[in-house]
């Protein structure tokens, strides 16, 4: 993070994260909400790319943008007519949500600022672990310390259970 270009890209990514996540929860049309969520997830993938986790950014785009948002759009179109809006919020409920969100913002923001303004991080260690595909494959399919074969298998069983569960729950009786 040194050149002007990367600052500009960071600015675009951070601004789109903030703007689109606010729009996601404030727009009254549910389909637009899903679209703004898609943009937020893309911006998150951009953040991963900025942090040099290319594989994670690719997974974010493939799974979230390719899978989850499509699922959202399908279910929105199944359960509501396009173009109908949610009704206006009661001001009490909106105030409750705003208070909860602002309280979270205040508490966590204070914690972050208090911590990171006092403590210095270790000077940037440049020997970052390589995150090329070969090492990721070794990390995922190894059984030694810091290797993840067991969670990998557990996730695959979980996905199988999820497929069966989804079919059983949503099928027409």
């Amino acid at each position, binding site marked *: 993070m040194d050149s002007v270009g990367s600052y500009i890209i960071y600015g675009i*990514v951070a601004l789109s994260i903030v703007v689109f*996540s606010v729009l996601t929860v404030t727009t009254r049309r549910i389909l637009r909400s899903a679209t703004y969520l898609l943009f937020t997830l893309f911006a998150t993938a951009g953040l991963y790319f900025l942090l040099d986790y290319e594989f*994670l950014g690719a997974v*974010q785009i493939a799974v979230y943008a390719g899978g989850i948002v499509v*699922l*959202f759009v399908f*279910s929105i179109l199944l359960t509501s007519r396009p173009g109908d809006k949610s009704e206006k919020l009661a001001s009490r409920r909106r105030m409750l949500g705003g208070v909860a969100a602002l309280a979270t913002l205040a508490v966590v923001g204070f914690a972050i600022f208090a911590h*990171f303004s006092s403590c210095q*991080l270790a000077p940037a260690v440049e020997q970052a672990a390589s995150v090329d595909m070969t090492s990721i494959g070794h990390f995922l399919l190894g059984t030694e310390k810091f290797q993840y074969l067991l969670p990998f298998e557990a*996730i695959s069983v979980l996905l199988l259970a999820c497929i069966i569960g989804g079919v059983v729950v949503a099928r027409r009786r």
Partner: protein
Amino acid sequence: MELEILKYLIPALIMFCCGVYGFITRKNMIAILISLELMLNAVDINFVVFNRFLFPGQLEGMFFTLFAIALAAAETALAIAIIVNLFRAVKNVDVRNVNKMKF
């Protein structure tokens, strides 16, 4: 003052707060699920950022995020299956109309 790490944590924090706001104010169940997705995503960003800035020699945060993304996909698929099933029974997806366990 560690500006470099705050630069990444603050957008994630704002995203999380938006998720909290939406989770409380929304009535449509799919919109609630979308807010949940926002919160999950913000937490994922935090794992990756802490991995990059605090332990750059290791990959624990990255793999945790990888597995969290897979879990999020599974959770969303099941929740949407439940919502579609509920839609058949109640004819809309408003949380106020789903106050009985039996139908």
